[in-house]
């Protein structure tokens, strides 16, 4: 298959050897599960259970609120002991509303009454509904509710489904292992998505540093039909949706457009697997494969973890730490978030837990920019990070915006290649947040102004109407008077009533 050219990007050391040959281990249910109500993009879910209630594995804990939202299910059976604020899986560690389950050993499974049947008989709407009810979100880390992407705009049908098996972040091998160990299940998930979207074509794109996964998936694809498995060059950020679309279809998405706009839909391998589990064995999204790696972990491996397991318990399962890690990262090392401590839970979007040593993160001092231009060449978006960085140092957010910071995808390529270790991507994330704030304020003030203007106009209109009414009344009265005076004897001219 012909691949189309791309620009930018970097080739960080893959460092996948720690985990790519270890089988996925199933983690036993921990004593307590901490399940945040916000694990996805969009509105947080609303708790449906009370403290003290007994729940079964797979039972609904919290209902989705609105179109862009996802429900949350119990990863294990047990008792709700608390619905309180707990640290979120976020660098700030700020508290977020969390359901805490004290698990029991019984592993009672919540039985849905709906009969699964053959999912290929279901309509697009039915599949989307069931995926939505299972709480499935984008498993690559974006955590966008998947059901929304399964219901395309009828005027703009999807013709190509791309499954993202690139896993371009270093260390992470969870998708890799999933494809190696469960190729038929992943393939079934892909075919189900393709069926739901009625797409003509389905392409599974795997980076060429995952030969075993590619072989397994190709063998699986040969056993059924309709899914092309292709290899793409290993290059970060290959997993960026727009780059995948471009390398496979050759189309560059116009700024502001989503892949759906040109009839392409992108899902992740992990999402395909979750959709397979939901439609085939009726299990909602209550666990996921997490890569536990990094130099400070004793036994790096991939683990099938119940959602809500604390990082602490997960690392203990992997043999604990060999040394105090210099940094604890959730996600991949390029875009992952630094965790403040180990008491944060695994959420639906956690693809990896990395306990990195001092040597691995290589924290050098920040030096002055030497304008080498490596960041310009590396930027997959075509921005000039060094110029934007220089403006951010002068706190010139507006100047940074003029250089296009809002198009920045935060992939971190610029910071990675920077020989002066300037935290460019942090500058840009700050700028984007600041600009978003300003935009919101602007919208708010313009709305307020609009309201104020509307009010003035309305008052004016009312006053005018009143005046007209009054004038009419006065005229009528005058006429009446005139008639009256005509009827009697003519007197002085009737005074027009003062309108003001």
């Amino acid at each position, binding site marked *: 298959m012909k691949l189309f050219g791309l620009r930018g990007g970097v080739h*960080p*050391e893959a*460092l996948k050897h720690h985990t790519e040959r270890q089988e996925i281990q199933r983690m036993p249910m921990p004593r307590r599960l901490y399940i945040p109500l916000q694990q996805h993009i969009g509105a947080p879910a609303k708790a449906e259970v009370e403290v003290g209630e007994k729940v079964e594995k797979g039972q609904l804990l919290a209902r989705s609120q609105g179109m862009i939202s996802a429900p949350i299910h119990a990863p294990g059976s047990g008792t709700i002991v608390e619905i309180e604020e707990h640290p979120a899986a976020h*660098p700030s560690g700020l508290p977020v509303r969390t359901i805490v389950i004290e698990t029991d050993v019984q592993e009672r499974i919540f039985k849905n009454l709906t009969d699964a049947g053959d999912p290929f008989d279901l309509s697009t709407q039915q599949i989307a509904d069931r995926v939505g009810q299972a709480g499935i979100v984008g498993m690559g880390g974006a955590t966008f509710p998947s059901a929304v992407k399964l219901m395309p705009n009828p005027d703009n049908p999807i*013709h*190509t489904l791309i499954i993202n098996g690139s896993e371009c972040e270093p260390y992470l091998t969870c998708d890799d292992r999933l494809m190696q160990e469960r190729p038929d299940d992943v393939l079934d998930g892909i075919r189900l998505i393709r069926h739901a979207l009625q797409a*003509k*074509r389905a392409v599974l794109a795997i980076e060429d540093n995952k030969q075993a996964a590619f072989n397994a998936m190709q063998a699986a694809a040969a056993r059924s039909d309709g899914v092309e498995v292709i290899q793409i060059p290993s290059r970060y950020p290959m997993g960026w949706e*727009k780059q995948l679309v471009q390398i496979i279809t050759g*189309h*560059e*998405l*116009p*700024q*502001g*457009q989503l892949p759906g*706009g*040109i*009839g392409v839909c992108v899902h992740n391998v992990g999402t395909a697997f979750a959709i397979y589990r939901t439609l085939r064995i009726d299990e909602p999204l209550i666990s996921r494969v997490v890569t536990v790696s990094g130099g400070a972990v004793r036994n790096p491996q991939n683990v099938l973890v119940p959602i809500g397991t604390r990082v602490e318990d997960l690392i203990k399962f992997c043999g604990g730490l060999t040394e105090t890690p210099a*940094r604890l*990262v959730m996600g991949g*090392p*390029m*875009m*992952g978030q*630094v965790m403040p401590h180990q008491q944060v839970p695994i959420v639906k979007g956690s693809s990896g837990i990395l306990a990195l040593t001092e040597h*691995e*993160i*290589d924290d*050098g*001092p920040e*030096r*002055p920019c*030497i*304008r*080498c*231009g490596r960041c*310009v*060449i590396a*930027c997959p*978006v*075509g*921005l*000039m990070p060094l*110029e934007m960085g220089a403006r951010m*140092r002068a*706190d010139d957010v507006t100047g940074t915006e003029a250089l*296009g910071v809002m*198009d920045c995808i935060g992939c*971190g390529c610029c*910071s*990675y*290649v920077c*020989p*002066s*270790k300037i*935290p460019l*991507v*942090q500058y840009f994330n*700050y700028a984007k947040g600041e600009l978003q704030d300003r935009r919101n304020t602007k919208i708010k003030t313009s709305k307020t102004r609009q309201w104020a203007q509307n009010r003035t106009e309305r008052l004016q209109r009312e006053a005018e109407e009143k005046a007209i009414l009054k004038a009419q009344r006065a005229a009528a009265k005058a006429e009446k008077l005139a008639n009256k005076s005509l009827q009697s004897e003519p007197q002085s001219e009737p005074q027009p009533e003062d309108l003001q």
Partner: protein
Amino acid sequence: MIRLNPQAGPHVRNPGKVPSLMAMVIIALLPATLFGIYLFGLPALNTVVLCLLSAAFFEALCVWLVKKRITLVLFDGSALLTGLLLALTLPPWAPWWIAVGGSGFAIIVGKHVYGGLGQNPFNPAMLARVALLLSFPLQMTSWVSPAPLFSASTPGFIDALAITFNSAMPLDGFSSATLLGQVKTDLGQGQTLSLIFEGQYNLLFHSLGYTAGSLGETSALLIAAGGIYLIWQGVINWQLPVSMLASVALLAGLFHIIDPELYASPLYHLSSGALMLGAFFILTDPVTSPTTLRGQILFGSGCGLLVFIIRTWGGYPEGVAFAVLLMNGMTPLIDHYLKPRQYGRNRRGQPLPMPAMTPPGEQS
């Protein structure tokens, strides 16, 4: 100034740091440097050492004055590189005050006056070279014939010190003209190139560097070898040197075809070590060259054009330093106008038109 989370990602080792980049450039310059020292004897060694030491000293002084961390800045190697580049462009038997004053000018006026590393608009080494050339035209054009180490003609230890520190001018037998200078003078006297080159110009000999000239600029081949090493290591982009060399070669070729008796061949131009040093080591100074690849090609071609113009019609036989400085002044402009195209937008920043839909069936 915004405050940042000190734990800034990405959380992986990155490929190269400023000090290691500078170190690699210095390594790439070593063959040419050592050859220059071999060719011109101990006085050349004195010049190199003086330039390096004084560059480091002035760097430390400036950093101390503005109260930054001396060790962090000094050991990034940029000052040493400036000193070395300056030394390579000096006459090999230059007196000590040329080396020290030049390094001081390069580091203080060429770099720290603007705010230090990364802030200077002009290449410090070239700025110092031009300042020296304008200030001391006599000393800066006193070339010596090769007097290799271990040969009978090489000055001894004491003589070398006298040449460097006592400004003992080279003996008559040693003074010589560079090829470029000789050709320029002879052309000015109305001679034809075939007459000038007869007997005294051998391309291979010339590009190997066994000739009079600046300390490290005689051997075009050794400099080019260092440059190719840098390209191979990914320290510099090939666009800059190639565009400069190509534009010089194209122009020279064009004029050579028009009148071979007046305009020398492209190989004659390319075999000059100063051009090679400029193309591979001066142009590629990241601070003063454009950051985009298209900008670098424009920048390199502009330098090539200026070098050819100055060499052919200008007052000086060699014009690399002037050409580089003039184009350095253009760098902000080039960077402003030759930005890369942003993803999903046209060059003006407007969103691209929607692509025409080609369903996969018809595509293949």
